[in-house]
């Protein structure tokens, strides 16, 4: 088996990138490990949510507060953004024009911001209906889990802007390439977490 064949997906850029491909090994592995730790963080918050599901203390519950249409749009936006980031990753890997790479990244950012806009709108309409975090254990748990994901997306958005800045400033050097690869992983990871949120929080809450 050749050296290249045993490299795991998500850890490499392909042999065409030479030294950058070698550098990716350690850095990407480190980021996978970080994501593992972050996944535990989310798991704990999910556990809090599930155990607090019935702790509404007489306040509004899932059926009173969730708006599945809006959440569905958010889901589509986020899934689409994962796809566009995938296109950005391909543009990086196959050395397409820099403009194309930046283009896909900007589209991803726009989709992410739209997602956050819808999410904030959801929160504010929940607030209007009396669904504030200090109302009950259930709402506390909700506002731990869903905004934690939102904060991650926000951080990812800021990171994305910085990376575009680095591409403009330095071009595609090793550090920028590795940054884009890590953000890609992070972005897809958040997508997976969102699917869990959509299923556990929204779908299960409304059935």
């Amino acid at each position, binding site marked *: 088996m050749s050296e290249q064949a045993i490299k795991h997906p998500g850890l490499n850029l392909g042999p065409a990138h030479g030294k950058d491909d070698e550098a990716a*090994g*350690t850095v990407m*592995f*480190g980021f996978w*490990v*970080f994501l*593992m*730790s*972050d996944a*535990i*963080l989310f*798991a*704990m*918050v999910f556990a*809090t949510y599930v*155990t*607090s599901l019935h*702790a*509404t*203390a007489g*306040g509004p519950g899932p059926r009173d507060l969730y708006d599945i249409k809006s959440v569905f749009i958010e889901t589509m936006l986020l899934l689409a953004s994962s796809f566009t980031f995938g296109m950005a990753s391909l543009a990086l890997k196959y050395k397409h024009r820099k403009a194309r790479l930046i283009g896909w990244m900007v589209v991803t950012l726009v989709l992410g911001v739209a997602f956050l806009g819808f999410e904030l709108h959801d929160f504010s309409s929940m607030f209007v209906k009396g669904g504030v*975090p*200090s*109302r*009950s*254990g*259930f*709402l*506390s*748990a909700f*506002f*731990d889990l869903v905004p934690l994901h939102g904060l991650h997306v926000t951080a990812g958005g*800021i*990171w994305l802007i*910085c*990376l575009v*800045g*680095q591409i403009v*400033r*330095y071009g595609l*050097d090793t*550090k920028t390439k590795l*940054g884009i690869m890590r953000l890609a992983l992070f972005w897809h990871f958040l997508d997976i977490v969102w699917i869990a949120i959509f299923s556990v929080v929204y779908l299960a809450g409304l059935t």
Partner: protein
Amino acid sequence: MNIVDPPLGRLQWSSLPFWDMLQHPTKGNIINGLIATGAASLVVIGAIALVVLLTKYKLWRPLWSNWLTSPDHKKIGIMYVVIALVMLARALIEAVLMRGQQAFGLGGGFLSPEHFAQLFSTHGTIMIFFMAMPFLTGVINYVMPMQIGARDVSFPVLNSISLGLTAAGAALVMVSLVIGKFSTGGWFGYPPYTEANFSPGVGPDYWIWALSLAGLGSTLTGINFAVTIYKERAPGMQWMRMPLFTWTALCTAIIMIFAMPPLTVATAQLALDRYLGFHYFTNALGGNMMNFANLFWLFGHPEVYILILPAFGVYSETISTFSGKALFGYRSLVMATMAIALLSFTVWLHHFFTMGQNANINAVFGIASMLIGIPTGVKIYDWMWTMFRGRVRFTVPMVYALGFIVLFVLGGMSGILLANPTIDYQVHNTVFLVAHFHNVAVPGVLFGMLSAYHFWFPKAFGFRLNERWGMISALCWIFGFVGAFFPLYALGIMGLPRRTVAYTEARYVPLEWMAFLGALLILVALLALLWQLWLSIRDRADNRVFVGDPWAGRSLEWANSAPPPEYNFAVIPQIESRDAFTAAKEQGRAYLRPDTYVDIELPKNSAMGPAIAAISFALAFGLVWHIWWLVILCFLAAIASMIIRGFARDTRRIVSAQQVRQEHHRWIDAVDQATAISRADECTSVNVGLARQEADGVVP
């Protein structure tokens, strides 16, 4: 909300430790006020003295460029250990105060209940998070990369940032002595007691943010260590050739990665309860404090193994080295370490057997807890077989290891007792439990770290520690421990609850006094340790071991000079077997001059570590005292610093082949001039760090 009014949040004159004493000068207030003010003065005077000394000897620049901004894992490791030793001194003095209070505690004593509660809360918090954790992180940082033949950890600047976060947390706990009061909720800060309506002061906030910073630092450290061991091993360093200390470091790192997030979640949720009126753990509106208990111990139990595994690794190294034999049952020790790491996640519920779950659940967790005794027992036998027919030398690290074996087995036995829920119900919340966990934590973790300190000090600083005072200190630790904690087993069975400031049973008094005297002996041990350090520095010229192998070491951290060059190895070693350095010495390839040297690339210094330390400390301080403008400012500064770091490019520097050759030749010249010594002379000044080769385990 106005973010600048009041400008200092809830910080007021009454936050100072002597305020109560001046406003309400009753006898009790004066005693407590004097103790608190004395402690605060020690912190302030210590800080001022440090600043004065640094200024007087013009050490600010060297401190900044050689230490604080250094990404060198060896320097970071040393700084971790310095933090640990400072915090050890404080928490140990607190322990002596508590034992003193209990000795006089029949119907009163001299401390107020609140002061006593602060003492046990800070003592526990410091010993776990700011003594044991930095100590083991420091030792792993120093030793592990060299044991696997690497130049540094995988992410050197991240390493420096982890140190900064830990240091900020430690500083926060120290500041709580001077400004305001620390939590009275114990080291695990159970709500609802620590919620805002029962503990409205700043205490739990200090606790929350100190733990959050330390926890974040440890998560990053865990990632760094694990990736380093996976990715940076020298050619030929296969898994089953790694020194056992590296194995334990790996297991500890993996536990850190998985066990720290629950702590982060628990403290963050408690903070949201306290700051924004959420209801995670409150009594009313659907809060559930059992979630806290589960989250905390889901971290807290694996944490116990984060602490003990590296100590097991240290004992494996010291026992094997000072018995002059390869480790017995290497494979079983590796398996046992892995088994313990796995089991550590399956027993958290035994911390609250009495909190109302059904008997079957208790039974499952009780059995799981007892199972941990099996791999631990395997280890104990392996260490004893390692000594068997070895040529055992009673050096200081070995004395700690022997004290550990005897005492830790007893502590483990009391743990097996407590793992049985029916027995746990009887002694729950008594000092029997206190005796048990100190019995595993002190002879286990602390003796392990002190053993490591004596073992690797000559490597780190180039001279041996004073043997005589080391021995005095070790014996005082061992017998002081026995005196201080064995009485607590009896007191616990007699019914003395833990954390009580005073009691009414006269029959407790003799045992309490015995425990107090034991605690004083431990204080003597600490003083002996400091005295030893002073003597060793004074006499360092007589005890130099520049050649680098003072103990006939077996693994690669001994295969370079003492102190080692910043790049660790002039040429990355090629590993062909276990105990790589012993093999190299036997085959006569330990001290060779290679034909060619190459340039070595190292990370440049970075101000990220100290910057994050300062920013996160100020952020946490602002949060504790509700100084919102400071919070916002520091939050933005933290983000900005990370963005700026992202744009940094010129982050590597080159050590020229010429310089490497020069330094390496200087060392090999020293090796050539040195006389190899036998093990009988290793604690005398003829030991310059070159060991005469002797066959394994020969009885003379």
